[in-house]
């Protein structure tokens, strides 16, 4: 009896003390609400879970067969989510809210497309330089925000929202200048610019999985290393905890903020580069936002801004996204995955409050127990 009570309480305490446990709970809640919604509109939620199972394991229950391709597609879809999540998370560690992942992503995409179409066609170097330039583009776009914030006290939330749309329309203007471009696409890329990797395609029986995956893995490691293991990361985190204390402690706060936004932008820019050269064979004239930058906010929130958490959350969002076509074929509107994403973010917003409520009820219980004795 005693043991049971203490175990029950320890679960609650776990939820209060551990961000990871709370994230899992929030995600489960999101799925629960999504499932209920599907039931309410009179569809069968099993279709959604079948789709998710097929994405995760490649196994199609109805046909009883494995399709490795779906695992490849899942990983490929997850790449921009993970990178944009890292972008948001990195800024968040410095106490900044980077809603600008979308704009930084668009700049990266635009720069990569330009270099892919107009750069010298040297094997390997071609796409590699394109990706590096995409990162630099994203870093500059993010760095501007940091600079405005540090120098002119412009709120990074407002600045990034403005820059998102400036990036989108500027990208349209610039890409349409490329010869042979119509209102929605450029001519095809030269082969040297593509991130295609025959061995990865063979491994996953023809999925979109490409060389970008190695850069994503590298990014997660670099993120973890910078944040946890370097003096730079320490300074950035200190700035995030308490700007004034950091300044007093001799950390160059202005430089920290600019640098943090620039590194955040580089992650998102890389995402843009990888999507443009990995998932498409031609450059796109964007008619609207791809949404990875906004989803990245959710990814970072679910992942609690840690390297591992963001990786896992990115894989989760990639899974939802690559399950969409399968859900459609199970007659479930694919937008359910956006709803689950949105719900997860709303739940995360209120989890602070949830925590307060739980702590309060724990205290009350403890007080009651004390009284009972």
């Amino acid at each position: 009896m005693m043991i049971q009570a203490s175990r029950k309480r320890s679960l609650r305490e776990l939820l209060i003390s551990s961000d990871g446990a709370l994230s899992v709970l929030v995600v489960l809640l999101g799925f629960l609400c999504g499932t209920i919604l599907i039931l309410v509109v009179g569809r069968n939620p099993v279709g959604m879970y079948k789709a998710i199972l097929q994405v995760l394991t490649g196994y199609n229950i109805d046909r009883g067969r494995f399709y490795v391709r779906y695992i490849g597609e899942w990983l490929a879809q997850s790449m921009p989510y993970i990178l944009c999540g890292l972008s948001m998370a990195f800024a968040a560690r410095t106490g900044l809210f980077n809603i600008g992942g979308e704009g930084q992503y668009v700049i990266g995409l635009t720069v990569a497309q330009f270099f892919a179409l107009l750069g010298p066609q040297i094997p390997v170097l071609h796409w590699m330089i394109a990706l590096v330039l995409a990162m630099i583009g994203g870093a500059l776009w993010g760095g501007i925000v940091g600079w405005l914030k540090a120098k002119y006290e412009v709120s990074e939330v407002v600045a990034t929202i403005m820059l998102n749309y400036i990036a989108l329309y500027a990208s349209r203007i610039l890409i349409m200048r490329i010869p042979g471009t119509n209102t929605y696409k450029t001519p095809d890329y030269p082969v040297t610019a593509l991130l295609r990797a025959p061995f990865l395609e063979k491994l996953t029986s023809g999925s979109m999985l490409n060389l970008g995956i190695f850069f994503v893995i590298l990014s997660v490691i670099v993120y973890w290393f910078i944040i946890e293991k370097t003096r730079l990361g320490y300074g950035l985190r200190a700035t995030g905890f308490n700007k004034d204390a950091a300044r007093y402690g001799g950390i160059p706060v202005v430089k920290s903020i600019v640098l943090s936004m620039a590194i955040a932008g580089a992650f998102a820019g890389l995402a843009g580069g990888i999507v443009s050269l990995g998932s498409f064979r031609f450059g796109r004239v964007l008619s609207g936002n791809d949404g990875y930058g906004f989803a990245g906010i959710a990814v970072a929130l679910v992942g609690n801004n840690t390297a591992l958490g963001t990786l896992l959350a990115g894989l989760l969002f990639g899974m939802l996204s690559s399950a969409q076509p399968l859900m459609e074929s199970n007659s479930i509107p694919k937008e359910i995955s956006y709803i689950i994403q949105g719900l997860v973010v709303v739940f995360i917003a209120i989890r602070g409050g949830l925590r307060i409520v739980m702590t309060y009820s724990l205290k009350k219980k403890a007080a009651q127990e004390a009284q009972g004795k």
Partner: protein
Amino acid sequence: MNNIIGKVPTILMLVSPILITATGGMICERSGVVNIALEGLMVCGAFASAAAHFFLEPVLGNSLSVWVSLLIGSMAGLVFSYVHAFASVSLNADQTVSGTGINLLANGVTIFLSQILFKQDRTKQFILGMMPGPGGIYPTAFIALLVIFVAWFVLYKRPFGLRLRACGENPQAAASVGINVLRIRYAAVLASGFLAGLAGSCLVLTTNTQFNSTTVNGHGFIALAVVSFGRWKPLGIAGASLLFGTALAFSIIASDYTLLRRMPTEIFNIMPYAITLLTLVIFSGKNYAPLSAGKPYEKGAS
């Protein structure tokens, strides 16, 4: 010159939704709650009224159906904004996170419901949208004028407005003289939801014949820019809306002018955002934003 006057209805058509949304944003931020969910709330309103108008038009006739749909759209915005109010006022959630969540959620929910109701990723087309009045000017322009006037009157001429502004500047002080900060912030967030929903309805009923994922297309974020460019004041917001709405209108009508035809129309799309960013830099240091905007209010905390 005559040519320009002919474009006034188009300009007003685009200014109105921005002005209405921005007024809501202003009310919300003056009470101390930042609302970046304006975009999502507009999406909800636009969807609800487009769907309602599609179903009601054959039953009620065009003009009655338009007004009922406007109301339904506004209520949809209000209901959705309740989530933001609950999260950011009752639970002290991070207002930016909550707003982002609503933006994501709104895009999902509206298209999801379109799939269920109409079996496609947008609503079905209604027969006729809102009818323009004399001079080709849509009634939405008058709605917008009324909204900003009432907002000004309430904010500056009524005790409620004074209390609301006090909550945005210094909620602790406001609470110390007996103002219920939570209730006022709730009212402000719900008002902004109602207005954003109304604006979304106006937008879809005047500029479009159906709702789809690109109907709102950043108007809510332009409204956010308007609030900040208009320095959180009714007159400033009216002026900023006029300026930004005109810029948007030119992205559509520029092709009518030989002088402007050579320019990419996207230049006009960029203008609202670039101007806002520039003014934020130029007027940096002078903070016009309500002092406590974005900060959760905790009872008893000093």
